[in-house]
């Protein structure tokens, strides 16, 4: 079986996978990082979004072998080592941007990348457009949009 070496949340691991193993399966089943979720089988829902080399990626769309040599950040690795939450996590809580919490890890990871890549600032419409790849069934997105908007100045102030 192929071997994959990758750095996840700062820790380097080498694991054996089948050729067909998806990155999300590697994260959840081989590394026990169950914060990344699987909500569909057609790459539509975005519950599995992680960062691969600084870009948000649907980890159900990427084979584990494709991530060989990459640096991956999952929701578990977003807060600082001392437990201080990322501003996006803080704002999701402050603005009640989650209910059941299942889409939340993917939503937060997608939102972090969206805001980070747009230092000029995003309008509400642009945030909504930027969330097209992530489904939430609980919130109606209203508070997710508010939380991301509120996180913008906090992230850019750093």
């Amino acid at each position, binding site marked *: 079986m192929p071997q994959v070496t990758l750095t996840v949340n700062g820790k380097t691991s080498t694991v054996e996978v089948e050729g067909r193993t998806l990155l999300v399966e590697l994260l959840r089943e081989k590394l026990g990082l169950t*914060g990344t979720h699987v909500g569909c089988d057609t790459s539509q829902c975005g519950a599995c979004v992680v960062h691969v080399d600084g870009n948000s990626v649907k980890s159900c769309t990427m084979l584990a072998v494709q991530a060989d040599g990459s640096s991956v950040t999952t929701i578990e690795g977003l807060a600082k080592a001392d437990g201080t939450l990322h501003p996006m996590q803080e704002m999701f809580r402050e603005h009640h941007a989650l209910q059941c919490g299942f889409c939340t890890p993917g939503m937060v990871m997608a939102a972090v990348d969206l805001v980070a890549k747009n230092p000029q600032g995003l309008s509400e419409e642009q945030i909504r457009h930027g969330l097209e790849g992530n489904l939430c069934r609980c919130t109606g997105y*209203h508070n997710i949009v508010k939380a991301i908007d509120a996180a913008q100045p906090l992230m850019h102030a750093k």
Partner: protein
Amino acid sequence: MNAPFEGIGASVRRKEDLRFISGRGNYTDDINRPNQTYAVFRRSDRPHANIISIDTSAAKSAPGVVAVYTAEDLAAIGGLPCGWQIHSKDGSPMAEPKHPVLAEGKVRHVGDPIAVVIAETKQQARDAAELIEIDLQDLPATATVTDALKSGAAQIHDNAPGNVCYDWHIGDKEATEAAFAKAAKIVKLDLENNRLVPNAMEPRVAIGDYDRHTSDYTLFTTSQNPHVIRLLMGAFVLGLPEHKLRVVAPDVGGGFGSKIYHYAEEATVTWAAGKLGRPVKWTADRTESFMSDAHGRDHVSTAEMALDAQGNFLALRVNTLANMGAYLSTFAPAVPTYLYATLLAGTYRTPVIYAEVKAVFTNTVPVDAYRGAGRPEATFLLERLVDTICHDTGFDPVAIRLQNFIPKDAFPYQTPVALQYDSGDYFTTMEVAMKNADYAGFPARKAAAAAKGKLRGIGISTYLEACGIAPSAVVGSLGARAGLYEVANIRVHPTGSVSVFTGTHSHGQGHETTLAQLVTSQLGVPFSQVEIVHGDTNRIPFGMGTYGSRSLAVGGTAMVKAMDKIIAKGKKIAAHLLEASVDDIEFADGSFKVAGTDRAKTLSEIALTAYVPHNYPITEIEPGLDETAFYDPANFTFPGGCHVCEVEIDPETGVTSIVNFTAVDDVGRVINPMIVEGQVQGGVAQGIGQALLEHAVYDSNAQLLSGSFMDYTMPRADNLTNISVATENTLCTHNPLGVKGCGEVGAIGSPPAVMNAVISALKDYGVRHMNMPASPEKIWGIINAGRKAAE
């Protein structure tokens, strides 16, 4: 500095969020048991067929396969039970065909499970499932209620002649006909309520586990009601007593009704774990969810209103055909009867009503309660009918509603369809909604939109719903096979912190926060010192779970009753310690006080005394401070309100944009305003989804066409807008908190508001009615046909 207020009425930030935002939730698929195996189901790809043969030999010898089972292997276990029995007009009980765990002799819908493969890895199970050879002999199939009722239609069950499950009615037929005979005007509308797929973001998962040494079974499952699953699966399917079956529903990623029911996969993995002596895990992929989670809605109705010359409603007559799907799901028969037809008075004082409901089997996934369950269907029918009356007669949609509302002083109000509303004020919710939506300013906005070539419309809907499910004796007399009370155990620990064990279940509602606020208010215990425990039959005494907006009205009241017992006992302990009469002890702000003095003991001191009873009236009362209450509600609760939707249609594309959505709801007392707003926004989004985007489509051969997120349009962030939410509350009169429920109101009130707005925007094109969803294709077709006719 004063501590922040964290009791009833405060928008406390949620306790549960910290684990969810940091990836430390514990959903069922996150659980793995030692020595676990994996189950994959082989499902029917045909809607209706006889099973001629199943050859599992190749699958059984495939790498990693532990076992392959079919219905033959499960012969000793029961079918999946139905929790409700409806009687037809003639008094006969509904047709209740067996719902086998794995298909027996026949498959009846696409997705019907035929066999299960259990292997060392999921991939091995998946590969082996494809090696099962199944010989099916196709039978004619039917997907719609109208087709299923045609003479000569394929018979889906031998013991349901004509595919009829029941033919039921409610109301006064003669009085209704007499009123129609005298009417100045009769307005009739044919309408459909589109079939939906609930699509909670977390797919269903079930893990069965068995301990050979103790013969204890455990099922971890994505359920809204673990005790109900224990009852149904233990007693009716597997024959396991309660003390040998533990059901755990940990963090659950949304339900919306679809995770109420007992499903075949739960029974299969639990049974197989016992057979193999190893844990068996099944995780649905989304494709399976589409063809195995209970669907929602799917009604075909005719509604007729009789009016006098002034526009007063004289009588309502309704005929509805309700699609049950291929088998009866747990609550399915109750949805189009006691959760639908009993709601047909709505907010109106219509004096007589007669409704007939025929439930019909088809070759589709079973249909059951989905967010709102029956009440959205009733509201859609009524509110579309009212706007159609205005279309046909020229009455104003606002004026005719105000004229026919149940007056404010008429409560308690007995409807002609069984329910008695305890409280409500439809005038105020409508007045505030119109103000918040700037209804008066609409003509100017319409003109401005027209100047840009856009079509603007505005729509109102008012609604009434019955939730807080449910008074057991009432639902028992209507056919429910279980009680619907709720249970709470309040444990004050020796140092004064509190654990609450509730039979309700949170799968997004935020119970760990809202229910803790009840304790903070009633017992004066700091919010941080309260823990809410739910979702495990081994930890919680009993419970009926969460659905029908019942958790606060029923479960919260059970907590209040248990806390009353804590206070009563605490008073006796305090009286002893303070050397006063029990009658002189008052409890407020967490402290027991001798009335009129400053002599007091805190709840913590009382708790410590109760657990360390050195100076204690031990001959009079028991040690400990731990009380349980069962609460059975006196009535349903009746939230109501008004939703106003404003849309803009692009005539070039037929795309409808929601430009404003305003909800004003009466949900009774609000415990956490932030959470209530979130619940309404989410419900409205699902309602907008139903109105504009979502539709579970079968082709004429009953093949499921919209079987993935590629084909079924879920609302996305850029399909929606901000949703303005406000409440104007009247208090429920029969529970101590005055609460009504907020989980479903959004999905109930919004679809007709959206559709009334769409139809208003298309007024110039002669549109009287349109079935949901109002897709761009439908709208563009109407606009284009209008243009062609004009050319």
